[in-house]
């Protein structure tokens, strides 16, 4: 699903969080929003879903203007904190969200088993979430976002606290999803994850300071170091120091 963000602006109280954000995410791509914490990544993500309104500007997803309730069925959202029910088991959490999407019992069971396999939690499916570790919760949260087979996936820092082996497995699965035509938007401040994505936009203090394909962005840095992307807005002395 193609996502078009046009001139979006947002302020909380008097503090401007996003100004003049425009970007296009093509269907079937993995798009990365890169930025330090506090740069407005999560806010932009929530505006794109329609969770919060923007003061100015529009967002369209697959040609439909956000917010739209039917559109929500096509989106899978994984929030930054886990947003799971602690008193329910892994399986019950999946079942609840599947129920909200009105999945049939059969589809749910098949899909849930498949997803728990990917995130390596199938043996622990009856464990209560409150007994799970932080990394496990992250994986459950990812599975919840995918349970209804969304066509657009919005992942807010999905791999924080996930060990490298599993991270690789999750990335392999995300690429598999991408190949089946699903559009994926992820936010991160982990630089090495950017190389896994197709396109990236750099957010700094509510402005997009660069957007391009990841390949081109890396080409623009002087020594191929992705972290340099952060210093692209003129702080060249820092850039030199890093090389």
């Amino acid at each position, binding site marked *: 699903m193609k996502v078009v963000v046009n001139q979006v602006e947002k302020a909380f109280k008097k503090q401007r969080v996003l100004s003049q954000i425009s970007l296009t995410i093509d269907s079937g791509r993995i798009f990365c929003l890169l930025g330090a914490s506090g740069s407005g990544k999560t806010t932009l993500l929530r505006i794109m879903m329609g*969770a919060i309104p923007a003061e100015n500007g529009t967002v369209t997803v697959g040609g439909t203007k956000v917010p739209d*309730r039917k559109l*929500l069925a096509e989106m899978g959202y994984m929030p930054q904190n886990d*947003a799971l029910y602690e*008193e329910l*088991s892994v399986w019950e959490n999946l079942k609840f969200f599947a129920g*909200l999407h009105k999945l049939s019992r059969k589809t749910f069971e098949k899909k849930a088993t498949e997803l728990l396999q990917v995130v390596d939690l199938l043996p622990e499916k009856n464990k209560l979430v409150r007994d799970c570790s932080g990394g496990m919760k992250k994986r459950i949260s990812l599975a919840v976002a995918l349970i209804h087979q969304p066509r657009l996936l919005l992942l807010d820092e999905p791999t924080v606290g996930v060990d490298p082996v599993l991270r690789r497995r999750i990335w392999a699965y995300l690429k598999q999803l991408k190949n089946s035509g699903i559009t994926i938007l992820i936010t991160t401040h982990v630089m090495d994850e950017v190389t896994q994505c197709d396109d990236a936009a750099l957010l700094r203090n509510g402005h997009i300071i660069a957007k391009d394909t990841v390949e081109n962005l890396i080409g623009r840095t002087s020594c191929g170091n992705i972290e340099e992307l952060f210093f692209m807005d003129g702080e060249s002395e820092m850039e030199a120091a890093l090389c």
Partner: protein
Amino acid sequence: MLSIVKRILGQIKNDKRSMGLLLFAPLLVLTLLYFILGDSNYVPQIAVYDMNEKFVTELEQNAHVVELNEKPETKEYLEENGIEALLWKDTTGTHIELLEQNSKSATALKAIQDTNKALQPAPAQSELLISYVYETADDNQLDSLSYVFLGVISFFFVFILSGMSFVRERFGQTLERMLMTPISRMDVIGGYTLGYGLLSAIQSVVIILFAVYVLQLSVAGSVSLCILVMILMAFSAVSIGALVSIFANNELQMVQFIPVVLIPQIFFSGLIPIDTIPFGLGNLCYLTPIYYGCAALEKIMIQGKGFMEIWPWIAGSAAFIGVLFFVNVLALKKYRRL
């Protein structure tokens, strides 16, 4: 909607302590109240002045009697000596002077009346003139307030349960996640009301059965009608809890809201006779769901009325739940515009 109901029941099933608190805490409080307000075998102290010998001897069966040689200044005498009642006689009849109206003075009054009855099986010839130092005479006894406590206790626990879980859901951002699915706001509120309503309905049934069959609370009317009223009250408590939690930004604020919402309701629960509230403020009772519940409970438990006589209060309760439902659906717009 059904998945929300199932989820709520599942959550409480896996959280044994919350379930225990939901079911047993009200019973504990109610039992405590029962003993506090119950028959304590307290022997009242009564001072008599110039009463006949026969009466005093009989009264000593029921109370500690202090015989006085001269009539003291009532107010100071009663206060200083910790005595409940002063009894004396003149041409107009027997005077009983009491300090204030409470359960202690009620026992004194009862002792005197029992004595009178024992001496004169026929209706009293000399009139009993009761006066209170601090209050006007009224036949209001604490024992008859059981319906208030039943209503308030069940309302209290349910209100906290639903309000808190809604705030927690917002805090943990599961609410946002839930709203980022195609579910309608009406389904969210409906599921919530029904889920917690079911839990509190179970609680109401447990409370009332406990009160009637274990504590032997007297119910003049039908117990099942009481249960119906309690369940309606529980549902409105759930809705009010949800509404308040929408305006509370965290758990602390929710706790601060508890007295704000609850204490005014207790005023209108029947603890204070509504007609006596000045400036027409008593009319505010129509805005408190606890009024409908407690008024109906009073009519069933004390006056033994049936459905045909209490249906306006039941309808009031139901209307309250309906209105709150739509208010909540609108208030949820704060979190999702659709």
